[in-house]
């Protein structure tokens, strides 16, 4: 397997401009002859499908929800970054680029990140034009807030519902194209496999989630925009349906999977309340603009927060990271919270929580201002915990939230299978080992609105490949493979539910491949996951039939994939003998407990090749060359 990132020549500042002006184009009359399959209609997929249809391509789009408007992007709260420098506080394309690379602990590709920073400003313009009601100042201009890992204020937002508003913008653009017949939309349809013909991606196999009917679609290119895989941990902040099935099955067909161990554990989530909990809820990082994080100085302090005098509180982020304070990046903040709890200073049930306290801000700004900024988040917190955060500090704890890893893609967002493109959270491209807040929305929309329209054109213009129809034998073969898996799952008729297995897998993942990882723990996890996976295929109970609306069957297929992916995550974490960003190996840390990177041996992306079920995968590397940035120890002190 060859990993060629195909980074254009020229200086960092010239690459994208040059690429755009010299790339091969598809003639206007030929575009409609190309059928583009877009799987996933979250921010990345909806923006791509709408824009490609506008350009004239024939587009089919798929999502598993009943409507494109419900993709997981809808849940993003805090905001979206862009190097607009409206605040005149020193922002620039270079600074956004630099902070993103540094935030990712120098494990991302420079050229991709620079392009992301370059197109970021146009995203805001595009969204405003669509009618996204971003927050405004009294002057009528756009407002900004600050986010972790940055010293400037460049985050645009719409109350605590930025993802919702951006998605509704992209969804409305997509809807216009559907209404005009330029996009054929297939909601409640799940992709279960990729069809590869002569080494290129030529179609997909999908299941209609209402009737259970399985069928194939042929196309000239396939775009996977199917989101991240945090649900491998069972408990995460992702929507219940988020899954790795599309990217995992593409991986099994030959697409390399890069950096699977880079997962982001978000510091500000509501702690787990009980054993039956089905998901964790994020409290936006934007809260750290006005909330102060603390734990009692004494271990085992069971006093109510209000009874702990200021002198007996440890505002540990402000203490350890005076420059960034409560706005230290996510990986750093999460680990610090874990350390406090490990020291026995955690609060709430089981001692797994820290306070996020708004008392000082309320005293300074008044409750009205805080309500205006975060009202809906405070309400959500109260609804879930039954506690009023205007009166008592929130309790928060880290939770799996985002996955920086994903299918390997080149500069043009193409995977190792020609014709298979990967956009948004599903690819591995821009965030290295840790993503900064408000950068996922930016990346999803950059990929969909501004990158893929050029890079897909380059591929299609160059591919004179003959048209393929579903009558090609590769389609029958792939359909049969999908049918076999479904039948196998239904035939087990064991004694345990899908969820019970998923919970057990999640617990192993969280304990061994979560915030702190060790070689020993990871080795034992690989063995445990294999054993549990084998039991799954012998003892899972999937009720109902294949040709029916059957949510248990949907889950069963996804969990089967999580077993294989979970194992790969652990393997990747085990092979990466360093700590960087969200990947923290206990063996590699400084005397102060900070991540110890190893640039000599690990300044590369690891891309894994599937070799078959139960067989060891092959690890390939793409070296990362830093030409514009000097590798440095990442410090937020």
């Amino acid at each position, binding site marked *: 397997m060859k990993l060629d990132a195909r980074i254009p020549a020229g200086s960092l500042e010239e690459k994208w401009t040059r690429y755009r002006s010299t790339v091969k184009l598809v003639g206007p009359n030929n575009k409609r002859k190309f059928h583009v399959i877009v799987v996933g209609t979250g921010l990345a997929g909806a923006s791509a499908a709408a824009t490609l249809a506008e350009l004239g391509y024939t587009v089919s789009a798929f999502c598993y929800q009943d409507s494109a*408007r419900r993709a997981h992007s809808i*849940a993003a709260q805090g905001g979206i970054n862009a190097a607009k420098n409206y605040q005149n506080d020193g922002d620039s394309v270079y600074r956004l680029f630099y902070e993103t690379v540094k935030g990712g602990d120098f494990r991302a590709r420079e050229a991709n990140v620079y392009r992301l920073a370059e197109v970021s400003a146009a995203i805001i313009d595009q969204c405003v034009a669509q009618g996204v009601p971003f927050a405004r100042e009294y002057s009528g201009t756009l407002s900004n807030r600050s986010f972790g890992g940055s010293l400037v204020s460049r985050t645009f937002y719409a109350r605590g519902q930025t993802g919702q508003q951006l998605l509704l913008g992209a969804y409305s653009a997509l*809807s216009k194209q559907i209404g005009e017949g330029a996009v054929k939309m297939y909601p409640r349809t799940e992709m279960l496999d990729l069809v590869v013909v002569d080494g290129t991606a030529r179609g997909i196999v999908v299941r209609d989630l209402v009737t259970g009917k399985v069928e194939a679609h042929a196309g000239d290119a396939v775009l996977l925009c199917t989101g991240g895989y945090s649900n491998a941990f069972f408990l995460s902040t992702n929507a219940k349906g988020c899954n790795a099935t599309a990217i995992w099955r593409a991986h099994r067909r030959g697409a390399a999977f890069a950096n699977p161990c880079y997962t982001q554990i978000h510091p500000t989530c509501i702690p787990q309340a009980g054993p039956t909990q*089905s998901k964790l809820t994020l409290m936006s990082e934007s809260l750290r603009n006005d909330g102060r994080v603390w734990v009692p100085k004494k271990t085992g302090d069971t006093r109510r927060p209000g009874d702990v005098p200021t002198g007996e509180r440890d505002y540990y982020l402000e203490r350890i990271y005076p420059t960034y304070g409560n706005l230290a990046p996510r990986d750093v903040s999460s680990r610090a919270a874990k350390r406090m709890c490990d020291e026995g200073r955690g609060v709430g049930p089981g001692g797994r929580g820290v306070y996020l306290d708004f008392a000082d801000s309320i005293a300074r700004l008044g409750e009205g201002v805080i309500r205006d900024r975060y009202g809906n988040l405070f309400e959500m917190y109260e609804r879930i915990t039954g506690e009023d955060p205007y009166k008592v500090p929130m309790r928060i704890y880290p939770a799996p939230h985002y996955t920086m890893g994903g299918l390997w893609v080149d500069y043009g967002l193409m995977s190792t299978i020609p014709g298979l493109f990967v956009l948004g959270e599903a690819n591995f491209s821009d965030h290295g080992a840790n993503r900064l807040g408000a950068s996922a929305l930016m990346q999803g929309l950059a990929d969909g609105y501004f990158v893929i329209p050029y890079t897909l054109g380059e591929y299609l213009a160059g591919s004179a490949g003959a048209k393929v129809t579903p009558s090609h034998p590769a389609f029958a073969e792939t359909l049969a493979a999908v049918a076999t898996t479904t039948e196998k799952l239904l035939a087990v008729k064991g004694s345990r539910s899908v969820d*019970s297995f998923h919970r057990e897998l999640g617990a192993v993942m969280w304990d061994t491949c979560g915030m702190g990882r060790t070689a020993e723990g990871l080795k034992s996890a690989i063995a445990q996951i294999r054993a549990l996976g084998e039991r799954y295929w012998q003892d899972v109970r999937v009720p109902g039939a294949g040709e029916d609306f059957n949510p248990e069957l949907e889950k069963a297929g996804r969990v089967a994939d999580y077993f294989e992916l979970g194992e790969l995550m652990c393997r990747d974490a085990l092979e990466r003998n360093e700590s960087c960003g969200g990947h923290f190996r206990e063996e590699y840390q400084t005397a102060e407990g900070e991540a110890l990177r190893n640039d000599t041996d690990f300044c590369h992306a690891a891309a894994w090749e599937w070799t078959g079920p139960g067989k060891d995968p092959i690890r390939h590397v793409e070296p990362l060359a830093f030409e514009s940035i000097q590798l440095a120890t990442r410090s937020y002190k």
Partner: protein
Amino acid sequence: MKLTLHIWRQKNRSDEGRFVTYELADVDDHMSLLEMLDLLNERLIGKGEEPVAFEHDCREGICGSCGLVINGIAHGKEKGTTVCQLHMRHFADGDVVYIEPFRARAFPVIKDLVVDRSAFDRIVQAGGFVSARTGSAPDGNAVPVAKPVADLAMDAAECIGCGACVAACPNGAAMLFLAAKISHLGLLPQGQPERSARARAMVSRMEYEGFGSCTNYRECEAVCPKRISVNFIARLNRDFMKASLFNETIPAGKAAGGA
């Protein structure tokens, strides 16, 4: 706590459907209503019975997937709350709870508690957008928007498209949903050029989809998990009246029944 549940079971669109009673023990205060249904399903699977189908995804009150009628009220009796955010501490030991799907002519049942709300998507496809070709936008600050206007547009834009308004309306009208979309875009300067065409195209599509008409019951506002105000309906009516008076042509493909 222990609950007696009467849950609507319906195999498919053509099945008649009926309530089935389940006794469920060990329901915990911390659970959401959907986690309570997870628990029930876990037990049903254990007994070899088919679990109850219900729709959900984000479980944080934003995607609009979940939607159930709890004891006769869409999303239950807690104000401003979706069922995924409705916690069991609001129920008491021994309670009897009726759980049904959203019922409306325009929302046929697919299975058990799952309904087909795709009519909402088709209303948006008819005109619920601002046409803004990618890459053609002026600078985001080129057109100032007064903060109160932006805030009001956002109040309307918060709609999650769950359909509770339709389920609660004795006429099965979708006016609150539509009003939210029309107001969100109609308030902003970017939404002006297509404002009339949008109102007419969306209203006619709504009628075509079989939603009823609004006779001011205001039940929609009472159940809306995002507390969208019925005042937006007045805005919609104004836009629609104006559009009808001036009778602009509707762009091709957006007319009722189209696409």
